[in-house]
């Protein structure tokens, strides 16, 4: 990602295109759009060096609202389009906007492969646990038993956990945030954008029309402190305003009350950079209502990016100078007819 010094004229406003966002009132997408513009400004991103690529879905209209280069692709294939962009011009900063259907249903395979290759992209998965654009069928993240237009008797599809999938696919950066927690979202987006390699962020996003309040537990003032735990590197997992924490019992996390002999030091300490992602995986399994759900950066490690490796091989090959067609055509046996 570009690390230009931030110039004063780069305000969030300048990243807005002339198109008015067309999401439903109360849709979580608005907030993400706002935070993304803030982060672009903060990073000093040049509009012309920034590309937003999306698939199909409500969230995938995102690129239209930004005055950067943009590509509204076809369903599930944003990751590939973005890979093509990045490999063709690695100087561009490339963002991918996708939904739980787009990225995990039809596009699941591309997500897997993009992540394992570690292409330098910033992927925002808008998880509203529903197909919004097609008006309300269950998605791969809809809870078991959910009644939707296509599951009137309740869905019998056991849901996927986006972060577990990403971690199972060798991710180098994995995080989670929430549409309404604007500061946290902004922070996580910034960290993702700064990460070199595939950054994968799951954003809990409210669909006010077809799946309203799916994330009530994490959004509502009354509940959120008890149902979410915010991760910090090298810090213990503490939540409920410091009253509770997570401790490891063999390979299983457990909730403990702090005090009464239980100290912070006894708790599970977060480590974003663990070589093998077993801790990140374990955290990805903590789910409401059994556990508070972790928010923040689960994992952030360095590994060469795919685009660097591809270009690197080309540079290596070109060390003795670029190729010449004359030579290419004459490789192997030739003969001359006079």
């Amino acid at each position: 990602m570009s690390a230009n010094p931030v110039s004063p004229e780069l305000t969030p406003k300048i990243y807005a295109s002339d198109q008015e966002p067309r999401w439903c009132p109360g849709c979580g997408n608005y907030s993400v759009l706002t935070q993304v513009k803030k982060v672009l400004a903060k990073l000093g991103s040049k509009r012309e060096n920034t590309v937003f690529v999306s698939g199909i879905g409500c969230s995938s209209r995102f690129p239209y609202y930004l005055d950067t280069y943009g590509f509204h692709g076809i369903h599930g294939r944003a990751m590939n389009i973005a890979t093509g962009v990045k490999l063709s011009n690695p100087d561009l900063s490339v963002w991918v906007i996708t939904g739980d259907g787009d990225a995990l249903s039809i596009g699941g395979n591309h997500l897997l492969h993009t992540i394992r290759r570690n292409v330098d992209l910033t992927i925002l998965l808008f998880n509203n646990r529903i197909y919004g654009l097609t008006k309300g069928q269950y998605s791969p993240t809809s809870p078991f038993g959910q009644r939707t237009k296509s599951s009137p008797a309740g869905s019998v599809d056991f849901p996927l956990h986006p972060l577990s999938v990403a971690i199972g696919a060798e991710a180098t950066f994995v995080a989670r945030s929430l549409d309404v927690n604007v500061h946290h979202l902004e922070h996580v987006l910034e960290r993702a954008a700064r990460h070199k390699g595939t950054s994968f962020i799951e954003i809990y996003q409210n669909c006010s029309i077809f799946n309203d309040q799916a994330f009530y537990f994490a959004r509502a003032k009354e509940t959120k402190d008890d149902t979410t735990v915010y991760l910090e590197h090298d810090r213990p997992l503490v939540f409920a305003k410091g009253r509770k924490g997570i401790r490891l019992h063999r390979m299983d996390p457990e909730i403990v009350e702090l005090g009464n002999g239980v100290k912070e030091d006894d708790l599970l300490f977060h480590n974003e950079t663990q070589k093998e992602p077993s801790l990140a995986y374990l955290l990805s399994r903590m789910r409401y209502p059994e556990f508070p759900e972790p928010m923040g950066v689960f994992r952030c490690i360095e590994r060469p990016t795919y685009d660097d490796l591809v270009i690197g091989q080309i540079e290596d090959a070109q060390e003795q100078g670029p190729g010449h067609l004359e030579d290419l055509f004459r490789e192997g046996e030739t003969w001359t007819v006079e």
Partner: protein
Amino acid sequence: MVVSMEKNRTQTNPVEVVNREDVVVRMAGDSGDGIQLIGTQMTNTTSVFGNDISTLPDYPAEIRAPAGTLAGVSGFQLHFGSHRLHTPGDRINALVVLNPAALKVNLPDLEPGCLLVVNEDAFTEIGLSKAAYDENPLEDGSLDGYRVFRVPMDVLTAEACKDTGLKARAVSRCKNFFALGLVYWLFDRSPDTTLRWMDKKFRANPAVAAANSASLKAGYNFGETKELINVRFEVAPAKIAPGQYRRVNGNEAAAFGLIAAAQRAGKPLFYGSYPITPASEILQELSKQKRFDVRTFQAEDEIAAITSAIGASFTGVLAATGTSGPGVALKSEGIGLAVITELPLVIINVQRAGPSTGLPTKTEQGDLFQALWGRNSEAPICVLAAATPSDCFKMTLEACRIAMEFMTPVMLLSDSYLSNGVEPWRIPDVESLPRFQIKHPKPGDRFEPYLRDEKLVRPWALPGTKGFQHRIGGLEKRDVTGDVCQEPENHEHMCRTRRRKIDNIAATIPSLEVNGDESGDLLVLGWGSTYGAITAAVDRCRERGLGVSSAHLRYLDPLPSNTGDVLGRFERVLVPEINLGQLTTYIRAKFLVDAVGFNKVQGKPFMVSEIEHEIEEMLDGRTS
């Protein structure tokens, strides 16, 4: 020429020397025998000698069969001559087989009375039973119709190698070179080219080098000294255009074409692909050419392959993707995206026999419909087809030119036959290749994403260019501004504009040429890889005085502007195709011409004689 039939003999006799304008030789053995290797060597030597050549490897389906079985037979056919050749030849004039299975599989293609050399050591009981022979064909008289020579190749190879210190198993692997030496003697070619190649190839392993060269020489000397074989062929060099030559097959030629186009456009090449027979070789060839800033992306599937190429095209590099029929089916949705975003994209389709997985190593021209019409809604693209292996180079360059000049996807149709076939290719002078002047709007230019020029082409503005930020995608766009637009009239306008833009390409392509008289009773109209067989057949018929001409379509959409004209000048049109009549359908719809299909769907190319025969039938029918 037909060599007169004789029983195999052992007496000493002067060698009969047969002069021929061209000869078809096939070598065959087990797929472990290294047949493709000696086939390539024979091809090299013959083309360096100055003959025109055309080859056809024929190896088994993709899974290896047990050694010695019918399914495991590998063959290599070489047609060489002193005049211009169009095909690898219908029938074989000389067949060399290393085992019984190879005999069984290939004998039907050998012309009666012609030369058959067999490795008699392989005709053991086990060998025969693996080939499902109840009786030994060398003994039961079933080969009486051919000029058969039995050579104990295993024994002689072992003999030749006895001082090299190689183990028996390694020695037996030299047998192919013994056979090659014998073939060199048969056709009066020097083994030197191959000996030089061996020197290089086996430098690291002197024992192997020694054994192979000893076997090669032994084979040659066997012919020279043993006087067992009493016939030799002489084929004079061809009179071909002066210049430096090399051999290419269709896939290499396509890969070269992509690289050359990128170089001449001053751009990196992006090639996104997923392996599939018979297209994988293009990916493989390109993956070696990183010096040319070729970025190959082996995608997780065909959909990722094409959509990554679309992303690359958006970014401003020359972008291509290649596959075969089933892969094209998967790319259909992606092609539609390239149509509506109006991005340059080259799609190479190396067709194979279908439907579905079909016969994956066999050839077919089954994807013309898919190329023209295999997408949802009105999604016109430019469709081209290469006529010969080396034509794949030229047509790939054309595909790249059109894609970039017209901001459109272009599908180039090749096929298994072209991709496997090898031809001599006169190496072009690089400076003679077209230089593509690609215009990208520059800061200061007026820019609108869908502002079209007089050819209806929209601008190719590159991410990274200040001030030209814009958004494209799969939703219908308003012309000029590129904003998402649901308006009825705009949609109709855009549908018609996309179609007209493809039609405009016609002004930049060559007219359809007629081979033979410009008008007459019968025109044989072809497209793609049938070029060689059709041309040879029509030439032969014309030599015999028949009133027939031919024309060959390399541009399928748009068609050359004079196509209707040409068709109109003939009373009848015959369309040979390796499918059930796809060009026939297309031509009938376009020109209301009662074109008649001549169709063969057997996973293999037309024989020249089949087309000749069909022409005769039609002309006969006419006069009767």
